């Protein structure tokens, strides 16, 4: 990464830190995570069994939205402020600008997640620390996938409001409608679609993969049966490949689109 890209990573991080929306969402996440942890701690010995799954639900709802919103204005925001040309007039490759923006925003997300989970650990006590720290990396992967999607949306749209609307629609799609769609598919085909195929489709959705992996981690693999999943978790390398694809492909596509855009008007 060159000097310009390094400067841009720092600038992105600073910009996010000064962004009121990011501050409010970080605070909200911290409060909800602490509340969950506090409630679970009051349950005594069952604290871990309550905190983990509750936080998984909270994270799978909130973090994709935060990630998407963090990414949605990366390029289109610069375009609307007339600073995209200024940025690209610096001695830097266009792809570097995209990756630097992605890195800066994921770092900001990591800090927000760290604050949220850290607050929960403080409230929940030392007993919950291991469980909460185990949640950090998967949560960051989930958020990074949506930052990446947000940046792709940001690259292909010409107005920030369009990008914001699209990212909210994508959030609804992945977090709410995707599972409903699969359920509908099962009903509509009267079981003709194999359970394995449905399970693979669940794993193909980053929000679904996160939910299933974390539930299994906190409550044991048998919880999958309770969720109606008759197929086991994907192999570690498959899981990592899915995460890598969701994180790398959208931002990589953005970099390609920007690099080969002949007319930045």
């Amino acid at each position: 990464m060159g000097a310009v890209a390094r400067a841009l990573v720092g600038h992105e991080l600073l910009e996010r830190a000064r962004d009121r929306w990011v501050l409010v969402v970080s605070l909200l996440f911290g409060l909800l995570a602490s509340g969950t942890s506090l409630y679970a701690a009051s349950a005594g010995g069952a604290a871990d069994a309550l905190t983990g799954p509750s936080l998984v639900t909270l994270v799978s709802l909130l973090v994709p939205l935060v990630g998407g919103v963090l990414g949605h204005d990366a390029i289109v925001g610069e375009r609307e402020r007339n600073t995209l040309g200024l940025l690209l007039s610096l001695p830097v490759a266009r792809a570097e600008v995209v990756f630097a923006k992605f890195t800066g925003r994921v770092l900001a997300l990591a800090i927000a997640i760290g604050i949220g989970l850290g607050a929960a650990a403080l409230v929940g006590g030392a007993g919950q620390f291991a469980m909460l720290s185990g949640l950090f990396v998967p949560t960051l992967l989930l958020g990074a996938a949506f930052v990446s999607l947000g940046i792709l949306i940001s690259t292909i749209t010409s107005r920030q409001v369009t990008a914001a609307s699209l990212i909210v629609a994508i959030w609804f799609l992945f977090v709410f409608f995707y599972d409903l769609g699969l359920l509908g598919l099962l009903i509509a085909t009267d079981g003709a679609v194999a359970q394995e195929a449905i399970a693979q489709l669940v794993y193909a959705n980053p929000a679904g993969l996160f939910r299933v992996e974390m539930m299994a981690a906190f409550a044991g693999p048998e919880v999958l049966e309770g969720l109606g999943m008759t197929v086991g978790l994907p192999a570690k390398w498959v899981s990592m490949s899915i995460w890598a694809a969701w994180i790398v492909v959208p931002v990589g596509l953005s970099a390609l689109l920007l690099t080969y855009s002949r007319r930045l008007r």
Partner: protein
Amino acid sequence: MKRIELQDVSVRFGDLQALDKVTTQLQSGEILMLVGPNGAGKSTLLKVLLGLIEADACTLKVDGQPARVDKKFKSHLGYLPESVAFSESLSGKQVMRFFARARGVAVSEVDAVLKRVGLAHAAKRAIRGYSRGMRQRLGLGIAILGDPDLLVLDEPTGGLDQEGLSVLWDVLENSRKRGRMVILSSHDLTLLEKRVDRICLLAEGRVLADDTPDVLRRQAALPVRVSFDFAGAMADDTSPFTHALSLAGLAADLTPRVGGLGVNVPPDQLLKLLDVRGQFNGAVQGVRVQEPGLDAVYDHLLATGGAGSPAATAEVN
């Protein structure tokens, strides 16, 4: 970089020929102004130079050698985009520090540049509290960070108040003195005509004229306005003077006024007019010669497709 040449630049957007074989050049210490109606291709030409728009055809030469708009080229330029806005949550100083780091300029230079563009007092204030002119000055400050060889300014006068204009004049003058090159696009001919060295008039993607303001004036050959103030009896009755003008064939465009007379004459008739004035030495109290404004020259060149009057063009050539 001491000299930049852009040759035969052509850009097409769908059915629109945005630039059609545009050729111009810029050398050390020179300020080139691109003018033309909206859609003439001014910003497109600047964006080709910045590498933001890939031309269908273009030859770029730097110091006589073929060149590309690559990282090395871009490390020599500073850019002010049109109507630039920055991240509202950051302060002017934070934004400028980022650009200083990105350009490899010592961060300690930031305070000096902020002072130079008149933003020292607002350096730590969030940009959301900046006026349009202050944002423009911040953009100008970012453009001059590191004293680049080439300054590209897109509509630099936009939103600037008198203080901001003074900053811009200082930047232009300083660039000229230090042998830097400036290419700018603007609609403010009247404001900028005395500040630039050359004017490139674009219309529908083609160069209609590209020369110094004085040469363009001569090329347009628009009438010069000469105002005479009379003393004594002639102040009440200008008919002897008017009669002499008629005999000399110069009375086609007269504007009588109290105590004087305005005469519009083609530039090549100016000496003849002064001859007539010589016949009335005692009566003529004052003479003012007013050249046509560059905006009038611009209108004329646009209307005639940049040809000017044939006689004047021959004289210029």
